[in-house]
């Protein structure tokens, strides 16, 4: 089955390449669209939902030259498989947990994902590794045109693309950049950065929507406003501020290297050592420690591990991924043991790191 093949691969956003990829994990744009001839989701009957799903699937696969897309019936999936797609950022948690006919279409490289019957009839998403919002926009704009040639969108001359929630009306566009900011967290400057971003109408969230630090120091920066600004303006609004955030993070890393070198080495090598030797480990602790290791690699403190390998460990130690890789359902305790085993097998103590030699 397609999902089992995916478990062994890395999606686009974890490839660890592209501009500024030491700090920027991925760039993502999503568009919210609705069909003109159906009510929004909350007023849809079961039949409406089923009809929307089959219409979209039929029109897009047959006529819109989107043959490389694979449609997955989300309603038909096991809970574990749905969670797996959430971990890969191909569907939202809401989409996974809702009821009724719904689907997701994805391409082989996992750059595109098209959710059908989420909060809106269509949620189109394009992901790019590293900082590349313009590339993401070119791709999603073209995809949107191709879909629009086959389906009539709900569009209002004054208000633009109409969405179930008025907070998305207009462009229906959310631009997000996923950044890794461990040094700003360690130096306790992260809240200050967040507050200044909020002042310019940007939103900051944790990796999977949570607002806590627990998810490996990954944060998504995205636009709040969708109406009254063009798509290019919205891209600039986010795109212009990311280099500033990158600069703050680099300065914080320099400070740690120059002023707190011993503490930093200690933290990085302890994190690496724990990941290599733990007998059981939770997914939160794994994320936390991998974050330190990831920064250690970027700062040249760990020499025998590459960024793409660490990115892969981030996703493969997530609960659903771990269970898919082990081909069995595991409870939390069992997962903590299996996670430790998996990390041990991937981070074998051959060669040893420079950090641990220090």
């Amino acid at each position: 089955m397609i999902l089992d093949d995916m478990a062994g691969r890395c999606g686009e956003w974890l490839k660890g390449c592209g501009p500024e990829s030491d700090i920027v994990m991925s760039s993502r744009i999503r568009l919210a669209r609705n069909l003109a001839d159906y009510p929004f989701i909350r007023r849809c009957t079961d039949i409406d939902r089923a009809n929307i799903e089959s219409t979209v699937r039929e029109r897009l696969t047959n006529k819109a030259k989107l043959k490389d897309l694979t449609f997955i019936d989300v309603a038909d999936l096991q809970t574990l498989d749905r969670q797996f797609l959430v971990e890969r950022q191909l569907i939202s948690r809401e989409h996974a947990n809702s009821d009724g006919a719904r689907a997701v279409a994805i391409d082989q490289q996992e750059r595109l994902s098209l959710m059908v019957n989420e909060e809106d009839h269509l949620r189109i998403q394009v992901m790019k590794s590293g900082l590349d919002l313009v590339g993401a926009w070119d791709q999603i704009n073209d995809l949107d045109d191709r879909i629009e040639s086959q389906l009539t969108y709900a569009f209002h001359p004054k208000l633009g693309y109409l969405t179930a929630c008025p907070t998305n009306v207009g462009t229906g566009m959310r631009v997000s950049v996923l950044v890794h900011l461990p040094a700003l967290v360690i130096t306790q400057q992260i809240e200050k950065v967040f507050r200044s971003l909020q002042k310019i109408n940007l939103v900051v969230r944790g990796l999977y929507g949570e607002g806590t630090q627990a998810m490996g120091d990954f944060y998504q920066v995205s636009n709040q406003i969708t109406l009254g600004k063009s798509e290019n303006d919205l891209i600039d609004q986010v795109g212009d501020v990311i280099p500033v955030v990158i600069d703050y993070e680099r300065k914080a890393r320099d400070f740690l290297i120059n002023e707190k070198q011993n503490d930093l080495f200690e933290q990085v090598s302890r994190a690496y050592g724990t990941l290599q030797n733990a007998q059981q480990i939770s997914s939160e602790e794994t994320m936390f420690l991998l974050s330190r290791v990831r920064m250690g690699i970027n700062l040249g403190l760990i020499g025998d591990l590459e960024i793409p390998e660490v990115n892969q460990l981030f996703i493969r130690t997530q609960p659903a991924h771990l269970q898919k890789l082990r081909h069995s359902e595991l409870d939390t305790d069992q997962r903590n043991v299996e996670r430790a085993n998996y990390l041990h097998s991937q981070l074998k103590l051959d060669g040893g790191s420079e950090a641990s030699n220090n």
Partner: protein
Amino acid sequence: MKCQKCQKQATFHITDLTGDDLLALHLCPDCAKGYLETGESSEDAPVISDVMSKQLKPLEQTADDLRELDAKECPICGISFYEFRQGGRLGCPHDYVFFGEDLDPLLINVHGDNQHVGKQPKRGITDTESQTELIRLRRQMKEVVEQEDYEQASQIRDQIRQIEGEGPASE
């Protein structure tokens, strides 16, 4: 210990067991209140209910106005303004027309604007009135079928087929 969400003193130490793995949180009273009331924030939802309540505060002084507004129902999808206010989601595209004036202050509040300036459909702005009519007819169809009025149901079905037949060319 400092709050994980702001710089204040953390006095609430929460262990959340609702997710897949356990989650330990250290929060100040304000952030803890927010967390416990809203739970996990979904991707786009957070602002709307806050904005709505702020938005409608002045109206509460004139309770009659609010009652009248709440009772308004979209003729196409049947959603009332009250239902929209409760759930924060609209019922159909026509709501933006039908509740236009009522939504305008909300849009200004959220977006600071009420005029779209971005992308437009390539095929031009088509008249979607007949599509809107389809939404109404399908709802009506469901109602008459529930009332077992099959004669009217077949009439409505014919109307639906006619509109669908003349719908925008998709090739």
